[in-house]
């Protein structure tokens, strides 16, 4: 009976669209996930989600911003944004010391970062759609990116890839488009806010 109700609900959402969308922002460390979450939140409510830094794993807990109002074709669509810690397969505190952290702080950061990865993975069950943020200046064909996208496909979670950092001269978003032709890829600069309108259109089209 519960299964049947869930099926009917899904069909109704398919027909009329979701009035409220829960979006997870995922990706490897330093791809610009928090910068994007901040850009969206700033755009829609004039507030930020969390601090950004050049040091990997700056975001070590899932941070949410709820009830952001997106106006689209005279309709109000409510977005909940979950900015998640970067997914990584390894965490070495010595990497953080290269950015000037003391050994004690680096070890603390590493411990929190491992917990962050676990929390980010758990949050996949809580979202209606995922924006996977990739750095356009890096090779996109990494094991982490493939694993994240493979999971989203397996769970049938609608996905948009944000090919970030197109403001940098070495950015090649075309490589991301070529690497993952089965996915929607929107080239953006979260830092400058470039192409966010296209991202919003894609959110409404694919997540709603």
């Amino acid at each position, binding site marked *: 009976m519960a299964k049947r109700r869930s099926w009917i609900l899904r069909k109704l959402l398919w027909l009329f669209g979701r009035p409220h969308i829960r979006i997870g922002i995922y990706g490897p460390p330093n791809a610009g996930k928090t910068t994007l979450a901040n850009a969206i939140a700033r755009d829609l409510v004039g507030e930020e989600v969390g601090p950004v830094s050049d040091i990997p794993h700056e975001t070590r807990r899932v941070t949410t911003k709820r009830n952001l109002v997106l106006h689209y074709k005279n309709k109000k669509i409510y977005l909940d944004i979950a900015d998640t810690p970067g*997914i*990584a*397969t*390894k*965490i*070495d*505190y010595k990497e953080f010391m290269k950015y000037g952290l003391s050994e004690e702080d680096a*070890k603390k950061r*590493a*411990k929190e970062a*491992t*917990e962050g*990865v*676990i929390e980010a*993975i758990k949050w*996949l069950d809580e979202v209606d759609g995922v924006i996977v943020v990739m750095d356009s200046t890096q*090779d996109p*064909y990494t*094991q982490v990116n*493939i*694993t*994240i*996208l*493979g*999971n989203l*496909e*397996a*769970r049938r979670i609608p996905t948009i890839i944000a090919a970030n950092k197109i403001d940098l001269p070495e950015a090649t978003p075309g490589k991301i488009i070529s690497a993952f032709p*089965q996915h929607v890829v929107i080239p953006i600069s979260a830092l400058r806010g470039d192409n966010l309108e296209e991202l919003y259109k894609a959110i409404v089209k694919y997540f709603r």
Partner: protein
Amino acid sequence: MGEIVLQIVSRELLHSLGNNKLDYIIDKILEGKVLLLEEGLTPEEQLTLIKKAMEKVDIDKFKGIEMAFYPEEQKKYGIFAKILKKKISRVMLIGPSDVISEIRRKGNTIETIIRIIE
């Protein structure tokens, strides 16, 4: 000179392990072994393995894992793969990140640099 054990794990063993497959893999990695799986993991298993690895991270002893694999060739089988829900698994290399120091993809080949810790 140090040594690295490369263990080639057969499909039969992986199947016989059932739900204990990921724990077996993590235990071998914690022993410092590099594993070559005859049949790769599904995306869900890969993510669960990452989660298990993160739970085992010990700041000074174990920093995590490295994986190298080819994604499933599901696209080639299109609709039939979706109907049958059959995942086309492929060979996979997994090991401790302080042993597998680098993974390089070159077209249709994957190279891994294995570091021997003295």
